[in-house]
Structures are given as structure tokens and as C-alpha cells.
């Protein structure tokens, strides 16, 4: 069992939350923590750090992580977007709220269902069933009465399946750590130098992972009101613009 990359082992130490990653979205879904307070970039860095330390990848645990972090990112980024951007109409905060409400309601449904299952189990517990081997006279007859019911090729083909090596899954080589803070600093410097820049032109030569974290940094600057961007078509060029004149909090 490769548990080196297990989510339960990813310990987080954030400003608003300390504990296993495992718990984080649960706490958000249970409304015990405001998602807007959570620094998601730090979680990604911590996970990537863990992954490269352990050197092992448990595919299922990694899928779980990606699913969980992706839904956190989506929810948070939608919550953070100002209402005013007309070109980003598709991402109204109302929609973010709808998404989060839907997630919370879905979780609640199964939480309630689990309580009813526990009650069913409790109600059925006093009924005990017999568990005893069949009397020998009934067991012996079985062999004589048995007729062919299965095709032996079933076994040969199962062995064939077992002899088939699992598909090689290309795992990206992840640099030891990509610091979100570092990317925020790089992005700030680039904006203050040029005020407006093209994402591909400035960061296109970096690795995909660094580009991804730079996008996270952009989200963070956007949340602070320090930068905005346009992308006129899906997968088209991204233009980043600094907005030094409107810091959040009116300072």
C-alpha cells in the first residue's frame, strides 16, 4: 500500500486552520470555517512537497486530492470575483453560492441518511440469525448432483487479464516545491514593471506546474484588488493589468 501520498498524512498549518487536509473541506461543508479565509495555494504547495518527499504516488489518493482541491478552488475563486466585471458574467457570486449550497445540501442529505441507517441497524440488532453448517447428508449430495455450470475458459481468460500489466500512467515530474509566495512576488514585480502584460509572453517558457501556480497567484492578487485580467476567448491569450489605484479596504 503506497500511503506516502495519503491525504490523511497531509498536515496543514494555515492561519485559519491547522490539521490534516482530510478535514478541511469537511469543516467548510459543515459551515465551521469560511472558505474565503483559506489559503489554497499553501495547501497545494504542501501536497506537492509531501508527494516529492515520499516519492510514491497512490493514484486513488491523488485523484481524491485533485477532486477536493479543484472543487475548493472553483468555489473560492467564484466567491472572490467582484460582481462588476461584465466580461466575467458567467461567474456571478450568486452562482458560486448556488454551487456551495448545492454541495452542502448534498452532504447534508447523506449525513441525515446515515442517521437513519444507524437507526435501522439499531432496530435490527436484536434479531439474531442462525449460522451453522448444513447437515452432512445435505452437503454430500451436492457433489453428485452437480452439473457443469461454468465455462473453464472463464478461468483462462481471468489469468490472461492478470498477466496484463497495468497501463503505464505518465506522472509529471513535479519540482520539489513551487512557492505560491514566490510566484505572487514575481507577478507583482512583473505588473509594476509593465502595468499590462501578456501571460504567455511572460510565463510561457515556464513549466506547466509553475504556470499553474502563477495562475493561482493571479487569483490571489485579483482577490486583493491588485490585478485583473481579460481573456476574450477560451484558451486565448490572457492579458494581466495591475490596479494599484483600487486597493481593497479603500486605503
Amino acid at each position, binding site marked *: 500500500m503506497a500511503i506516502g501520498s*495519503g*491525504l*490523511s498524512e497531509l498536515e496543514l498549518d494555515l492561519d485559519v486552520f491547522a490539521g490534516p487536509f*482530510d*478535514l478541511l*473541506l*469537511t469543516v*467548510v*461543508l459543515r*459551515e465551521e470555517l469560511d472558505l*474565503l479565509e483559506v489559503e489554497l495555494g499553501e495547501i497545494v504547495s504542501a501536497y506537492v512537497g509531501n508527494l516529492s518527499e515520499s516519492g510514491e504516488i497512490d*493514484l*486513488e*489518493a491523488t*485523484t*481524491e486530492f485533485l*477532486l*477536493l482541491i479543484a*472543487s475548493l478552488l472553483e468555489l473560492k475563486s467564484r*466567491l*472572490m*470575483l*467582484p*460582481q462588476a466585471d461584465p466580461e466575467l458574467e458567467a461567474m456571478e*457570486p*450568486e452562482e*458560486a*453560492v*448556488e454551487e*456551495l*449550497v448545492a454541495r*452542502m*445540501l*448534498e*452532504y*447534508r*442529505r*447523506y*449525513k*441525515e*441518511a*446515515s*442517521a*437513519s*441507517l*444507524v437507526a*435501522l*441497524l*439499531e*432496530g*435490527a*440488532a*436484536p*434479531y*439474531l*440469525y442462525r*449460522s451453522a453448517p*448444513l447437515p452432512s447428508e445435505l452437503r454430500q449430495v451436492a457433489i453428485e448432483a452437480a452439473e457443469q455450470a461454468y465455462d473453464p475458459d472463464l478461468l483462462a481468460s481471468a489469468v490472461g487479464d492478470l498477466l496484463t500489466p497495468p497501463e503505464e500512467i505518465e506522472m509529471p515530474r513535479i519540482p520539489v516545491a513551487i512557492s505560491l509566495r514566490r510566484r505572487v512576488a514575481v507577478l507583482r514585480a512583473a505588473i509594476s514593471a509593465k502595468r499590462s502584460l501578456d501571460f504567455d509572453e511572460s510565463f510561457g517558457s515556464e513549466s506547466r506546474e509553475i504556470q499553474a501556480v502563477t495562475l493561482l497567484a493571479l487569483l490571489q492578487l485579483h482577490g486583493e484588488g491588485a490585478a485583473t485580467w481579460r481573456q476574450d476567448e477560451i484558451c486565448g491569450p490572457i492579458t494581466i493589468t495591475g490596479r494599484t489605484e483600487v486597493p*481593497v*479596504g479603500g486605503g
Partner: protein
Amino acid sequence: MASDLAADIEALLFLSPSPVSVADLAEACRAGEPEVEAAVAELESRLGDTGRGLVLRRVSGGLALATAPGSEAAARRLLARPRTPPLTRAQAETLAIVAYLQPVSRPEIARIRGVSSESAVASLGERGLIEESGKSRFGAVLYRTSELFEKLFGLESLEGLPDPSSFDPDPGDERALRERLLSIGEQRVGS
């Protein structure tokens, strides 16, 4: 004749290690299903008499004999078999998701619960309540509930699970939740 059939059915249910359907009882007793149904009703009412130690249960798609609840304490003392430990919160939530959405993969369970469900899935498997049921398109193992689950939870079939929509909060609660979240979002966007 009818009483002989009821006796045969009691004997078959006593011997059978798992619940037996009316169709299988009919075939084994060389009787029609309506006669079996009638004999089952007769057996049930006889078992319902005061002072009886056994009851008839309809579980997991068939009929089974079980001990009456009043004898549980004595039975557990004799067999030195304590009640199985209650489900933890994580196990109960995971089991509910598997029961309603089966077949379902672990990443999907994690998505709904917002938490990795590796150990809950493993312990439910160990308790025999869920079992593997093939793989998803992406190669993740899929899980479903077992026959033992239906037996231990007293369900005749999965149809017997309570309607999940009965667990949804009333519209007032839902609206309050939505408004609260929206106001948080607006504060944050801070104009």
C-alpha cells in the same frame, strides 16, 4: 395439507444459511407460490404466538428465521457474541452514500463527504457491509452494499431504504443558508 407445508417451510428456513425467496421455497416444496404465501402467513402467525422464541423476517429478498428480540441478552451470553460495535460517523456517512448511489467509487465518496474516505471504506469492507463491484471507466474500484448489509439492517431489498428526498432541509433553511453565504461573499468583494 397447508399445515404440513408450513412445517416444511420452517424446516427449510432453519437449515438455509441465507434468506430464501418464495419462488425457491415453492420449487423445493413442489407447491405453487400462492400456497407457499399462505403457508408462510400461517407460519408467521404461529411464530407470533406468545412465548415463541423465533420470528419470521423478510430480509435481503427472501425469508429467514431469527430469534425474537426478547432473547437477545441470553443469546449473547451463551454465544459470547457481543453486539458489533456501532458505526462511526465516517462509516455511517460512507455507507449511506454507497447504499444510495451504488455502484460508487471512493473518489466520488470523498467528493460528497469532502474528506478522504479510505479507512471508512476499508472498515466497511472488513465488516462485510460493502463489497467491490467492478471498476469505473477511470479504473477506480466501485463499491456496492452486500447481502449481509440488507440482512443486518433488516431490509427486504434496497427499495426499502428511506426516500433520500425526505432528508432534504425545508426550503426556509435552504434560503437562510444561501442568504448567509451570499452576504459573506459580498462583504469579501467589499466595494
